[in-house]
């Protein structure tokens, strides 16, 4: 088990290192290959009245004219020991872990991501619980009542959920549930520890919107898995032993079906934690996704790089947790490890 864990951990760290390198190359080398000069790169950081002196000062400050390997080394060094940027006589310290410094917003990237984490985390967790519990429950009932009205309606809804994008369902809910019928207040994030009720109320619509998209996939996957499992011989044996039906379904039917569900849940949750771009934008929630969108629009490269790395980190960690859960869900993994 320990070897298995270490192996997965090592693979995760390696993956993060590769993602870091590739992302860095995309943002700092590709523009140069596409013909952008060092001056043009620097112009993006010198505001609306760029003088030649200010452009040169920016090139020096950001080492933009240095070899790319040195620039990458400086970036990696910043993550572990921090970095210092010199503005004339004034120094700006980007403390470790320094994921970059936004020269458009004049802020360190890491604290900005951390400040937005509660919003994204709250949204991901709430929506995750709803889509997992909702999707799996609907899938189980649909499988048991195959061909019933419930099955047909829920699978129809599931198809709609998969097909309809967040920018449609989200705006629909805002347009009708909030603005026209006034059933909900406009979603505005309140920290959980400040007011748990306001926290849940504000996030309810984003949760449902995000969960509607994901739950559909889980319902369909669970239904398919359950239908396959419930036809197995050991289910017949379990029933023959006289086990109550709920035990047969939950313990013997559902458990093997959960293995692929856990896999996709880990990936989905990791992706949402890395920023639910559309949901956060639609509901004007100030999470990591919207931070990324704004950075992309204003071409704030250090922020894009920082958010990408953070997103990758969440996906890797979520995968690691999934691997551990495998060992619990499927004993064969433990044995193999």
């Amino acid at each position, binding site marked *: 088990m320990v070897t298995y864990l270490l192996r997965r951990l090592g693979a995760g760290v390696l993956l993060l290192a590769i993602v870091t390198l590739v992302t860095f190359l995309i943002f700092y080398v590709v523009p140069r290959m596409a013909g952008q000069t060092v*001056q043009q790169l620097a112009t993006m950081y*010198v505001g609306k*009245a760029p003088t030649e002196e200010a452009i040169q000062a920016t090139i020096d400050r950001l080492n933009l004219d240095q070899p790319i390997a040195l620039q990458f080394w400086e970036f990696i060094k910043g993550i572990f020991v921090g970095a210092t940027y010199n503005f*004339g006589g004034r120094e700006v310290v980007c403390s470790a872990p320094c994921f970059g410094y936004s020269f458009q917003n004049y802020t360190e990237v890491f604290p900005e991501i951390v400040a937005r984490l509660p919003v994204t985390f709250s949204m991901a967790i709430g929506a995750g619980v709803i889509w997992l519990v909702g999707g799996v429950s609907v899938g189980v009932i649909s499988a048991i009542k195959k061909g019933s009205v419930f099955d047909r309606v829920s699978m129809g809804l599931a198809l709609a959920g998969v097909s309809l994008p967040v920018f*449609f369902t989200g705006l629909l809910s805002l*347009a009708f549930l909030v603005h026209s019928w006034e059933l909900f207040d406009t979603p505005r994030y309140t920290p959980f520890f400040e007011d748990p009720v306001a926290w849940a109320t504000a996030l309810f619509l984003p949760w449902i919107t995000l969960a509607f998209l994901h739950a559909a996939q889980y319902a369909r996957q669970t239904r398919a898995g359950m239908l396959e499992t419930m036809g197995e011989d050991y289910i017949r044996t379990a029933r023959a032993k006289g086990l109550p039906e709920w035990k047969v379904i939950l313990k013997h039917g559902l458990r093997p079906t959960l293995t692929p569900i856990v896999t996709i849940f880990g990936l989905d949750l990791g992706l949402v934690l890395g920023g639910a771009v559309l949901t956060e934008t639609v509901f004007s929630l*100030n999470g990591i996704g919207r931070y990324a969108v704004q950075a992309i629009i204003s071409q704030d490269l250090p922020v894009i790089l920082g958010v990408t790395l953070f997103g990758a980190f969440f996906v890797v960690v979520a995968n690691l947790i999934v691997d551990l859960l495998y060992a619990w869900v499927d004993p064969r993994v433990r044995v193999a490890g």
Partner: protein
Amino acid sequence: MSKSSLGLAALGVSSVLLLSACGGGGGSDSGASGSFDQGTTEVVNASEEQGGTLRYAISANIESTDPGNTYYGYVWNFSRYYARTLLTYSAEPGKTTETVPDMAAEMPKVSDDGKTYTVKLRDGITFEDGSEVTSEDIKYGIARSNYGDDALPNGPRYFKELLADSDDYEGVNANPSDPLAGFDGIETPDDTTLVFHLKKAFADFPYVLVQPQTAPVPADADKGQQYQEHVVSSGPYKFEGDWSPGNGLTLVRNEEWDPDSDPVRPALPDKITVEEGVDQNEIDQRLVNGELDVDLGGTGLGPAKKGEVLTDEEAKANADNPENGSLRYVAVNTVVEPLDNEACRQAVMYAADHNSLQRAWGGAAGGEIPNDVIPPAIAGHDPKLDLYPSEGDKGDVEKAKAKLEECGQEDGFSTNLGVRSDRPTEVAAAEALQASLDRVGIKVDIKQYPSDTFTNTQAGSPDFVHENELGLNIYGWIPDWPTGYGFLSYIAHGDNIKKAGNSNISELDDEEINEMLTDAVATEDASEQERLYQEVDRRIMETGAILPIVFEKSVLYRPESLTNVRFSAGYAMYDYMPLGTTNT
């Protein structure tokens, strides 16, 4: 990333469709509080009622809260809540382009040669910690935003261009023990007097003193660009906590502010909040529903809500449709061949169908068709000027062809047109122009660029323009101050052609224009100034370097909750200082 971009584009389209579907002025506060366009010329919902929370929202992040590090009109307007300036624009309807004293006790005294301006400060102006604001604090604020390689990057540099005896000064960071040593363009003989020494007479200098760079900054609180986190207040409101971009801003009352020292701000609300990064359609919907008081950006309703409000009589009564002082135009480059030939440029001027350009800009509510460059609110505008007349403003194809013959391009020519891809109105105007020029054989290839880099690295970079043969670029101009010089110098004076961030995109360098602009701003005689600006206006049109599209109009919405509303032509949006709210 491409998936996100596609998604966001679709998001924009969907939001327009959906949020317009639920509107119809059916919100809780849809009753009218005035009549259509009343706020352009009068005060609507006049009130002296104090209290409540005034709610602002903006679709982007606030550019910067630092008064020394901003070039957006909405920040210049808004920052006055916490950063007082030497002068400001009058809040009196009909006089909103005139300057009036703010921290200054009276209007500056000008020396006979027009090169020295003396400003006396009022008594009782303090920072939020109760310490007195001195002339040195104001001088420091100007120094940090204008001088040195590390000067704050976002704002203009008018003081550096205009002040004498300061060319060798390297900024506040060069000598930390005496940050103002060598900055001799401003004298501070005592704590309440500033004496500005100019290189040459500059009659528009009072407008420069309106800029937020004249707000006082205590040297020991300056953290460079990070000062934006907590600007030390000299106005009626101060920051509650710190600000960082995207996280919203809350202002609360500054108990140290003395109302007797401030004739400009009634300071009605108890609290002011700003929500950042709210989708524009969502902002518009909340305004109409009464869930929000002001769109901080001040550019008006988006296309979907604009159409809806203007067709609903009840909602329309809560809207104003002022000219926002902006000229939208096509910069016709004077260097890229064959447009380097004046007759070829004039062919473009004749061939353009102004009617279709106006329709692309949203029709009459989007703006008036101009025949010159200087907008109506600015002295120098000539309503009689019409150098390229045509029936129904549809362009004169015959005269265009004659001009093409004159410039040796009788079969027409090909050129490229640069436009900001994320601005649908500009793209629509580009397509309209493409169609109208095609009538005379001028083939236009539209090249789209992101708006964030357009001014600095594409249209604003002469090298890029030449390399990519961008003979035409669609651009807009709002003056830094509402005078002929403020409007024209950056887009038409040859001395202002820059390697990057160039606003004179036409690269117009006409000796006659340069000379007249320089002369006009040196004279204090208003009628002579107006005559010179009219001449410049005519000459620019003659050169064919600027093809005007519209004098743009905004549709601003004032919810029932908003009191003391009036349009400021100086800031080209509602004047934020007098506003109050009934929202508690």
